[in-house]
């Protein structure tokens, strides 16, 4: 047989598979290893999905997605962030941010182009850059300053091949929220070196210590930014697979061209449900966000009390404590904790080398479970 695509073949398999298999064999696991809300999609949205099925909305939509949904998204972005996109021509409904990210990279990259990516970052960033023919170049960030993105570190990594900077704020896995000033400085770097910005803002509603900064809203950013967002996290709609890509017309148009041939359109039922999420779901979002914030405060304090140093996670629903004090690597910590106490966390090094020595804990889990997890983790650490 002829060889398979070497780029894909070179992509390492998921670093959490091993843990998944162990955890799946236990029946009393408390999983802090998830990456989605513990809420089921709020009923009003599920009900809208059911109504869409009953109405027979089972067809394709236009390639760009339901105009009503694009209009609602653009109105929402304008209202909350004063950033304007044309629903027709600058907004595309995607199958989640995952598809939007893939589209953005495929539109922007030529073979060999480099993309600057923070380390640690969401596991898909690097592979998606590679699959699109580019090369991810990781820029280390540190727990010492809460995983801030330093413009000078980004600038120092720029080469003549650099095409874009890909960031996520609030971030998976760290929960870090980049300040407006740091994002402005990052934008300056992009302007100075004529780079595109890809901004994964899937966690934008989950900001606890202040308002989210939409990257495209910063002076000079919009014309070079691809804004990715969606419904999965804020509206607890991970399984619906619906998100959006907003970008200046030339970029959005080409993204739409790939989308029309590869995805055709996002799920019609999911788009109809997303319309309801935007138009009627604000109360549900506020309740869920308030609840995550309370769990965040309890959980982060608890981690610190059992001796794990934890940078303040200002957003998303992850804490990313250091396990250095235990003398264990993140892989050892995660595996031994799972085997000994049946608590699943994700070792930080799967998100990049700078994640080593940390574990990612998702606190989107019932408060009683979080407390029990802390009790078990404490017992585990004291038993080392």
């Amino acid at each position, binding site marked *: 047989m002829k060889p398979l695509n070497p780029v894909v073949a070179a992509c390492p398999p998921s670093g*959490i598979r091993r843990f*998944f298999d162990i955890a799946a064999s236990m029946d009393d696991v408390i*999983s802090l*290893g998830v990456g*989605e809300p513990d809420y089921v999609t709020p009923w009003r949205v599920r009900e809208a999905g059911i109504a869409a099925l009953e109405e027979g909305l089972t067809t394709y939509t236009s390639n760009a997605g339901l105009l009503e949904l694009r209009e609602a998204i653009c109105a929402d972005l304008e209202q909350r962030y004063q950033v304007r996109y044309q629903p027709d021509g600058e907004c595309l409904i995607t199958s989640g941010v995952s598809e939007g990210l893939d589209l953005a990279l495929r539109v922007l990259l030529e073979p060999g182009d480099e993309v600057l990516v923070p380390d640690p970052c969401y596991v898909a960033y690097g592979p998606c850059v590679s699959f699109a023919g580019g090369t991810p170049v990781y820029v280390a960030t540190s727990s010492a300053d809460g995983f801030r993105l330093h413009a000078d570190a980004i600038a120092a990594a720029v080469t003549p091949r650099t095409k874009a900077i890909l960031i996520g704020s609030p971030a998976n896995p760290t929960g870090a929220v980049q300040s407006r000033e740091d994002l402005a400085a990052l934008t300056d770097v992009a302007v100075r070196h004529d780079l595109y910005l890809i901004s994964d803002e899937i966690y934008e509603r989950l900001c606890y210590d202040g308002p989210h900064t939409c990257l495209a809203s910063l002076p000079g950013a919009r014309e070079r930014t691809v804004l990715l967002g969606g419904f999965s996290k804020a509206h607890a709609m991970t399984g619906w697979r619906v998100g959006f890509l907003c970008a200046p017309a030339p970029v959005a148009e080409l993204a739409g061209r790939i989308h029309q041939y590869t995805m055709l359109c996002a799920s019609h039922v999911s788009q109809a449900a997303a319309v309801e999420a935007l138009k009627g779901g604000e109360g549900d979002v506020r309740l869920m966000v308030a609840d995550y914030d309370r769990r965040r405060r309890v959980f982060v304090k608890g981690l610190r009390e059992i001796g794990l140093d934890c940078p303040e996670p200002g957003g998303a629903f992850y804490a990313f404590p250091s396990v250095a004090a235990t003398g264990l690597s993140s892989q050892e910590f995660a595996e031994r904790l799972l085997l000994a106490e049946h608590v699943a966390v994700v070792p930080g090094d799967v998100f990049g080398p700078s994640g080593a020595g940390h574990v990612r804990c998702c606190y989107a889990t019932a408060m009683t479970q979080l407390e029990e997890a802390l009790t078990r983790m404490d017992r585990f650490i004291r038993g080392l």
Partner: protein
Amino acid sequence: MQEIIDILMHDGRATPERIAVMTGLDAEAVREQIASLERDGIIRRYKAVVDLERLREATGAEVVTALIDVSVSPERGAGFDGVAARIAQFPEVRSVQLVSGGQDLRCTVTGSSMHEVGDFVARKLATIDRVTATATHFVMKTYKDDGELLIEGPGDHRLVMAP
């Protein structure tokens, strides 16, 4: 203030220390606010939300609940308040509310049997001066009570680990 109430309405056992951590407020400040809420009668008491059907299955303890619509001819000066206050005095009566619609007061009455509740309505409630009619609706099944879903909700379908 509202956030403390939100937390306590969901979990009456949340301690001031816990609420302080959840909200980022000082524990002493939370304690004072709760004390003032209690003093002002805004927080009346703390209780458990019980699934009576499960309780019956577990212990055989029967609790019969009825919603009773009461028609009242209002008093000059006091309206419905006098009659409502009389009805509210009975320990069998769990709630009394003035409502819009065809009837005037809606009451929740509990007892250990339908006979007991029916007897209470006939002998105590319907005989109150100015009560002109009653309509008793026995509760057959409770699906949701006090914001708590008592039917099986969807389980946790999440994968144990995901990036």
